[in-house]
């Protein structure tokens, strides 16, 4: 493995790191005196450019003739069509987030902010490529630490600091759990490479080692925190509400995408030897029942808690918990169809989340807050944006022909399994039932937007074009992915087929 090879493999990450440095430098050195808006726009332009270059590299540099340079760098880092697809998605989400953040007036430290976003993105990209326990941990920490700071960025609002502190403490605990678990895994398997671990565990066969069970549990705890699954989601409502909106958008979209992919890789590849089963009549110990419990709890808690919310950002947080539950179904399927469903679902969820937060930022701009009552009459003030909000909410609720519906359908069919054993049916029914519950609160948001009359006070300043364009584009993407799922599924299926997953 030569350095050149390494450089080529990690080129996207390097590009992003360089972009981060450039943005930081530009802002600190050159743009100090300029008005906030200009700094944001120039910084965002650079950052965006970097993302585009990195994505372009990923798309253009395909493996030679289908043969993939899979595990490389000593088995730490995977670069195949699937990870490339994930990275492109991540970069797209980051790009959208950056564009949305051009609105923000919550901070003066533009350069740092954008640099942190980009560094978080690097961390996420590493997360999807990592195939080694240590790499996993590094990537996790890079992402998390960046996100903690991003959460705290609004120094004028005490809620922001409180949220960041909670996030940090929680996250620290979770990191400790993860490390603990990973160390047990290392102890059991004797290697830090996921494939080696899998081989070792498969050889053992027979009953599951209690130590392995403990290791799996701890790992699940740690990773579950990242994806905000119940019961490890307590940080999410505060983080989503307190953080400045672009940060929240990134947490909700990018870190979810990366987190799920990582969880899938660790569980399906790493613990392939000890899946167990959570089916109705065939319980056996393994990681499947663990994840199933997580999924069930998330779906129930997230949906039920969201009903009572009066702040849209918190509502989105609890809905994120619920959607984590649905996405976990893809992992439970434990086959390539499940992975496809999972990736489709989280990517489209990410798109929807960024769009939703974009709209939240517009409302905050106009009324100063993002409670449900602040959305009243939004349909009259901003018909186009309100329509986009309707698309996002309905996609989250799972109404066809939007992406959210197709994602859920795909997940359900993936997990439903073969004709003989419909063992996961209890979970599917739970998920569907809770989905019906979720309809209530999404519709509640739309009710505020369209049905309730607007308050008399004059609306605040109009948001800039950039945000609007981004929101509309994201909405169109949601519709497109819903009406023509093959747009995403096509490349996805191809990517998965080529991968030993």
């Amino acid at each position: 493995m030569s350095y050149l090879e390494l450089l080529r493999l990690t080129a996207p990450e390097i590009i992003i790191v360089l972009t981060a440095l450039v943005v930081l430098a530009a802002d600190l050195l050159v743009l100090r005196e300029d008005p906030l808006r200009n700094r944001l726009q120039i910084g965002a332009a650079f950052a965006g450019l970097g993302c585009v270059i990195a994505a372009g590299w990923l798309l253009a540099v395909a493996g030679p003739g289908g043969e993939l340079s899979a595990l490389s760098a000593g088995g730490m880092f995977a670069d195949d069509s699937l990870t490339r697809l994930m990275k492109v998605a991540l970069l797209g989400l980051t790009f959208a987030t950056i564009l949305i953040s051009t609105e923000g007036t919550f901070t003066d430290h533009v350069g740092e902010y954008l640099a942190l976003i980009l560094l978080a993105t690097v961390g996420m990209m590493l997360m999807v490529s990592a195939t080694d326990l240590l790499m996993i941990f590094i990537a996790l920490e890079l992402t998390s630490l960046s996100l903690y700071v991003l959460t705290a960025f609004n120094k004028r609002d005490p809620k922001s600091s409180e949220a960041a502190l909670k996030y940090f403490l929680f996250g620290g605990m979770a990191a400790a759990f993860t490390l603990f678990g990973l160390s047990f895994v290392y102890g059991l398997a004797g290697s830090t490479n996921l494939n080696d671990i899998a081989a070792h565990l498969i050889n053992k066969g027979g009953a599951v080692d209690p130590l392995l069970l403990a290791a799996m549990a701890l790992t699940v705890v740690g990773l579950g925190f990242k994806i905000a699954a119940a019961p490890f989601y307590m940080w999410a409502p505060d983080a989503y509400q307190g953080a400045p909106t672009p940060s929240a958008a990134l947490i909700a979209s990018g870190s979810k995408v990366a987190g799920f992919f990582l969880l899938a890789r660790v569980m399906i590849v790493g613990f392939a030897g000890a899946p167990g089963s959570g089916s109705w009549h065939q319980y056996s110990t393994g990681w499947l029942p663990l994840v199933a419990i997580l999924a069930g709890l998330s779906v129930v808690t997230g949906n039920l808690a969201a009903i009572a919310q009066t702040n849209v950002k918190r509502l989105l947080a609890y809905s994120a918990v619920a959607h984590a539950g649905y996405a976990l179904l893809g992992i439970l399927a434990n086959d390539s169809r499940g992975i496809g469903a999972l990736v489709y679902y989280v990517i489209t969820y990410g798109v929807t989340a960024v769009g939703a937060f974009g709209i939240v930022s517009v409302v905050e701009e106009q009324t100063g807050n993002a409670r449900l009552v602040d959305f009243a009459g939004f349909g009259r003030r901003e018909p186009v944006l309100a329509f986009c909000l309707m698309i996002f909410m309905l996609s989250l609720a799972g109404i066809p022909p939007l992406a959210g519906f197709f994602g859920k359908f795909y997940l359900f069919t993936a997990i439903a399994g073969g004709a003989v054993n419909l063992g996961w049916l209890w979970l599917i029914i739970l998920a569907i039932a809770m989905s019906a519950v979720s309809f209530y609160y999404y519709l509640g948001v739309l009710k505020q937007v369209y049905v309730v009359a607007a308050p008399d006070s004059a609306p605040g300043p109009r948001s800039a074009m950039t945000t609007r364009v981004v929101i509309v584009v994201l909405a169109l993407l949601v519709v497109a992915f819903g009406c023509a799922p093959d747009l995403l599924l096509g490349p996805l299926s191809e990517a998965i087929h080529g991968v030993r997953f």
Partner: protein
Amino acid sequence: MLAWTVYISFLGVLALLCLPAGMARAARVIALVIALAGMVVGIAGTVCSGMNGVWFPIAEKPWVKSLGIEYFLGADGISLVLVLLTGIAAVTGILFSWNVEHRAKEFFAFYLALIGGVYGVFLSFDLFLLFVFYELAIIPKYFLIAIWGSTNREYGAMKLALYSFIGSAMVLAGIVAAYVVAGGATTNLFELAKYPFPEPFQFWAFPLVFVGFAILAGLWPFHTWAPTGHVAAPMAASMLLAGVVMKLGAYGALRVAMTLFPAGLAAWRNEIALLAAIGIVYGAMVALVQKDFKFVIGYSSVSHMGFVLLGLATINGIGLSGAVLQMFSHGIIAGLLFAVVGRMVYDRTHTRDLDVLETMGLGRTLPFAAGVFAVAGFASMGLPGFSGFPAEMQVLIGSWYAFPTYGVMAGLGIVIGVAYTLRAMQKAFFSDSVETPAEAAHPLPPISLPEKIGAILLIVVTVTIGLYPKLLLDLIIPSFYSPLFDGLRQRGAF
């Protein structure tokens, strides 16, 4: 060609959304033109198909290859009958909504979106596509009621939306299960109908899907959304709700549940028939004691849909054809009834309380409305000469085959139907105790031309089908002999 009914409706939605706000007149005209176009296309498509009820494809394109989902549209006699109903209901609904001023363009946009979705359901023969259109129709319903409705509208809208969504969630579960059990290769209805689902599977999958759809059809005891929803809804939405949307549920039950799981149907038919019969009688009895005029009609809808469900449960040719004919007939009659109650009476008197209306002497001040309601009332009773009679007649004949007791209960329901219709008619229009003649208080606006046209159109349709049901029966009955219903025919007494 028939697919254009769907496309035209959605194009209409786009056109309306692009209109600047405040142009109510333009919105109305555009909506009417679109609805008329849809109706004309529907009629033309039906006539061109040869009027023999045989299934024919309209569009077939692969959609999501990896899951075997296709964009598959087609039509058989049953679809055509319901497409015709939708067309007529759409046009008359717009005619009766001619006076909508508040946020008119959004009203008609949601209206046309609902119509488009409904057309789509009736023409889809891919399970996934059918479900897409079916769910799609829930959202416009919610907004139509929540924004433009009357009594308790937000509650009524949410209740209706949630019930519908729960129903479709159940259906989704069933569809996913069926798709997966059949190998996960295709969602084509014909293919899945051929697949021999194991009987224990059908035993629970059938009630799941059937009840899921039947919730929307007003199956007792899941019908409670209907009265509240109908009362809360603005008049045009009530017409559509009772007239067309309830038929979506029944159609789904027939097209999906009964086609895919005939063994399940055979196992559960007695229970379904029982619930249907209870619904007929219960709906009628509750309608008898209502104080609110619209509630009377709402509960009468539940009662009439009971006939549809009873007919479906009989699993014989004549009962099934009666069920489909009743779907059409009730759609027209319910539209007429809601038009009178909502548009002609409520919009003018601003009250639906029968005791208050009793004092108003509407028979004198609104003779046209009184006459139309009399005709609609007699049609609703199932008097011969109107479309309800051949439909109910067939359902009753069919139930002699299978469930004589429920047939007799249905007869009881008819008698109670006579009672509550007469009561409502008496109180609202022909009462003797006139204290404050409505004209003295303030003059009521006369019945406008669009209302008259709409009412006459509906009356002509119901009388024509009542006297010559062969027009529709020629479409309906052969449909049941298509390969789609093979499994059904094996289990029933055809």
